[in-house]
């Protein structure tokens, strides 16, 4: 009966080799993920991080009389956030039955068996790493649009939210839905954008779902002969109105989220249907803190020439049951840290 004890002797299937492989995957999954653009990686040394916010402090000095002292400019301290975060991990398992079935397919040919099962494992490792990266995607968008990151228990789907305690003015709710009759979504949108630009500085555009964009477009002024503007024309019109380059980041991408501890997933749009967020001019709304994974440090100590990123996705095996089972675990210590001073979001439902 073949077992999986040989896997770690195969050069391309060692923990170190697969770790190096998955760390070379594109962090944005070849354009499928947006976190490297909007919440780029920042290396940190620990899973307990301090974030110090900027303060908007503009004191004015006063004139003084001759031979007297001037105005004391007092110190102000910024808000600080201390965050402790827990790891992201995806796992897969190969069990005896799968080994047995495959063994029968290859009629006991050990060489073919090893080739076939060996070819599957790297692909599985890639899949686990991409799942880890998608968690960053979901979390930073949630942090941005609601100020909350939600931990989902992988065993039973229970949720535990953690809030960033943003000021309420950063995450607004429209008093009347922009899609309601009698409301000009375009006018409401422009007013909100202008307030946002005043608050966070220059903007590059907004990120939203297509349904919300369509509402804004529908209420936008028409061209001559009652012709509706195109998206490009609307972007140009707003660019002209605001005197800053402006674009709509329409996001309809989806991910498959688990709703309980089982295996069933639901294809869910990553961007909330009713949220519109102002995008800063450099597109950066957050940082993603990457902390070292202890197991990666062990691999680096064992294979110093492998070029392993101590803060990247790290694979480790857990052989069980006399080699009859193999669990692959892919760990990533990463967490989004949104910059409150750049958050300007409205719920328009």
């Amino acid at each position, binding site marked *: 009966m073949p077992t999986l004890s040989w896997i770690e002797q195969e050069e391309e299937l060692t923990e170190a080799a697969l770790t190096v492989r998955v760390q070379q995957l594109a962090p944005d999954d070849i354009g499928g993920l947006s976190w490297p653009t909007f919440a780029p990686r920042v290396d940190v040394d620990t899973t307990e991080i301090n974030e110090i916010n900027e303060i908007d402090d503009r004191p004015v000095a006063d004139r003084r009389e001759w031979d007297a002292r001037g105005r004391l400019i007092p110190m102000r301290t910024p808000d600080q956030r201390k*965050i402790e*975060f827990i790891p992201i991990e995806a796992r897969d398992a190969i069990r005896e039955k799968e080994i047995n079935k495959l063994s029968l397919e290859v009629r006991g040919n050990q060489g073919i068996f090893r080739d076939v099962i060996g070819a599957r494992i790297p692909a599985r490792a890639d899949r686990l790493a991409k799942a880890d990266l998608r968690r960053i995607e979901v979390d930073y968008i949630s942090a941005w649009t609601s100020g909350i990151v939600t931990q989902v228990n992988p065993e039973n789907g229970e949720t535990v939210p953690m809030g960033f305690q943003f000021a309420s003015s950063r995450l607004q709710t429209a008093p009347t839905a922009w899609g309601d009759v009698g409301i000009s979504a375009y006018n409401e949108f422009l007013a909100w954008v202008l307030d946002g630009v005043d608050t966070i500085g220059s903007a590059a555009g907004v990120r939203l779902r297509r349904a919300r964009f369509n509402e804004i477009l529908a209420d936008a002024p028409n061209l001559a002969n009652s012709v509706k503007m195109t998206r490009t024309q609307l972007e140009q019109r707003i660019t002209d109105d605001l005197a800053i380059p402006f674009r709509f980041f329409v996001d309809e991408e989806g991910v498959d989220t688990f709703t309980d501890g089982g295996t069933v997933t639901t294809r869910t749009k990553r961007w909330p249907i009713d949220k519109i967020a102002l995008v800063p001019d450099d597109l950066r709304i957050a940082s993603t803190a990457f902390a070292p994974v202890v197991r990666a440090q062990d691999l680096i100590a064992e294979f110093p020439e492998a070029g392993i990123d101590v803060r990247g996705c790290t694979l480790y095996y857990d052989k069980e049951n006399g080699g009859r089972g193999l669990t692959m675990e892919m760990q990533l210590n990463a967490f989004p840290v949104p910059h409150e001073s750049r958050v300007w979001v409205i719920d328009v439902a």
Partner: protein
Amino acid sequence: MPNVLTKISGGATYADPFLGPASHPAQLKVDVSALTTGEVDAKGYLKPNVPFKRVGSLLKLCDGTAAEFVYGVNFAAIKLVAENPTNVTLAADTSDPIIAVATIAQLQRDICEDNLGRAFNVNELAAFERAGDHITVTAT
């Protein structure tokens, strides 16, 4: 353990209240049991520029005793007691730590009162004016 966030709100810090040089320091024990949360903050620090009279070798708050005058004010916030003190816990404190006070100085009153979070009371204001006091306070 879940993800955890602890927010520490920012804000104003204690400001330097001295308009001119603050000098001639004296190191004396302070009677903590006579202090209140008007002089000690939530972190257990004696707030800056609390006016003290001297009774023997002990610094005490001005309490309207005849002829009392301000002997000195502490230069900056000083850790005295544990966090979240109350008037009750302060009254029961017998530690009498040594602090340094400026005995000659000129204070900017508005900064002092912002630091204390209260106005100087009538006893303190009178004590600043009496003979023996070498600390002046600007008009507000």
